[in-house]
């Protein structure tokens, strides 16, 4: 029997899953689509490798208990993550015999999330990607600065090696001082913690709980590749790059996740209206950002958001009354402190603040992840 659906969490499977030690970095909550209470092991032959964003799919023929050959779709991390783990599009080829351990789709279809993949002919485990942050430098390097001593938020110097900000210390908004366990995509371990996360109005709390109960499967970034506006742009696995255009007093924030969008932060003294020709008060995914320096901290004030997206992993709601005050402080060469104050009288009972840090990824260009590449 080559097909085996593991209904009991067998010790052997537990060991192998632990051995894989993959920190998932997918572009959405895995549990939205797959059920961690339904572990499975599939052995079969690769028929197709679909090496595309947002997720790689491996299709394989698997013989079931009735000796019927069935084709399964195995969803894996994005090409970016698999490449970081040493994969490439030729790591698996049609005809390869493999064993996949993972979890089954919630909807009962022949789809599975692959946690580990082992080649049948060699026994080599080929899915060994790890997405933990690289270790920090032994001693902090000084904050790079412009000639006028203003901190550089992007590249360390003209012509310097590329780099970007990633590996956020927190991947979902939670009010400072609150400690509630949740997944990388903000799925609460205990839904009773929902009211602790932020000072939600009753309707917003109920909607947040509803989204959590549905394992975040209604996330418009997942369903429709909607942009990660608001703090979410800093919570995602592929980071952000700051491109400082000092001549025009603006900063471009290039966003590695979602659809590789960008956001412009102006510090030329303009207001928050009419920044884009002709659209004046049209609500936007990234809002309208104006900024000024407060000592070594870049303070960004943003309004003008639409309500078409989730502004954080986890599904905390917002309304078009949302105002964000973001404070960026490059405390040393490799660390960006990010404090965001959320003011939204439409969804919250009072302003609240959440803080996190980002790590500098030196010598690399921003990954280009385009969600829509594999979406109709």
């Amino acid at each position: 029997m080559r097909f085996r659906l593991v209904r009991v969490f067998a010790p052997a499977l537990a060991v192998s899953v632990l051995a894989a030690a993959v920190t998932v970095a997918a572009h959405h909550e895995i549990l939205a689509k797959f059920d961690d209470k339904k572990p499975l092991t599939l052995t079969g032959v690769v028929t197709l490798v679909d090496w595309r964003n947002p997720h790689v799919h491996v299709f394989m023929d698997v013989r079931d208990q009735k000796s019927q050959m069935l084709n399964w779709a195995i969803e894996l991390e994005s090409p970016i993550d698999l490449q970081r783990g040493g994969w490439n599009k030729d790591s698996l080829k049609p005809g390869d015999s493999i064993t996949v351990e993972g979890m089954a789709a919630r909807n009962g279809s022949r789809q599975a999330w692959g946690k580990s993949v082992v080649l049948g002919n060699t026994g080599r485990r080929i899915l060994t990607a790890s997405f933990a942050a690289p270790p920090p430098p032994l001693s902090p390097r000084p904050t790079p600065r412009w000639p006028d001593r203003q901190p550089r938020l992007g590249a360390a110097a003209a012509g310097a090696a590329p780099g970007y900000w990633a590996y956020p210390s927190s991947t979902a908004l939670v009010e400072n001082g609150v400690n509630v366990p949740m997944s990388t995509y903000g799925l609460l371990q205990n839904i009773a913690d929902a009211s602790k996360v932020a000072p939600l109005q009753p309707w917003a709390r109920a909607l947040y709980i509803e989204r959590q109960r549905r394992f975040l499967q209604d996330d418009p970034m997942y369903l429709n590749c909607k942009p990660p506006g608001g703090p979410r742009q800093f919570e995602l696995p592929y980071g952000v790059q700051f491109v400082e255009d000092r001549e025009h007093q603006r900063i471009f924030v290039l966003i590695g996740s979602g659809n590789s969008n960008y956001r412009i932060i102006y510090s030329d003294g303009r207001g928050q209206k009419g920044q884009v020709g002709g659209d004046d008060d049209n609500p936007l995914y990234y809002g309208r950002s104006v900024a000024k320096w407060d000592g070594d901290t870049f303070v960004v004030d943003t309004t003008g958001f639409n309500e078409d997206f989730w502004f954080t992993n986890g599904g905390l709601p917002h309304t078009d009354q949302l105002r964000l005050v973001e404070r960026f402080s490059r405390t040393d060469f490799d660390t960006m402190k990010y404090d965001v104050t959320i003011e939204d009288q439409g969804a919250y009972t009072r302003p609240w603040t959440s803080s996190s840090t980002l790590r500098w990824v030196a010598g690399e260009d921003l990954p280009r992840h385009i969600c829509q590449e594999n979406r109709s």
Partner: protein
Amino acid sequence: MRAFAFILALSFATLLGGSQVAAQEGHPLKGSWLGTWAGNKIHGNDVLVVLNWDGKNITGMINPGTDNMAVKNATLNPDGWVVHLEADAKDKSGAALTYVIDGKIEDLRLPNRSITGTWKNQRESGVFKVGRQ
């Protein structure tokens, strides 16, 4: 005449909106809702409700541009997503009427969610069903 104006408004709305339903991840009632209050002999079978949320109150208008009934005493109980709307109106003779709509949001997660329930005034009542546009 009222029916003609409504159809004209509806045609414009359809032309402007096409078949797309705008995403809306904020307050679940916010937006334009189009449907029927079945059996309404005074103001017609079709109804358009435009609702907004200012952070404290749900405001809006029923049949804007045709009947212009301002929504009052509107509530949303998130425990079951129960909706209550009221609006003052006048019949053709100018006599005052108050509409009371009670319903529930269905398919909360979808942009084209709906409200189903009942409507009534001092003389009539029936089924109320609108979908978000």
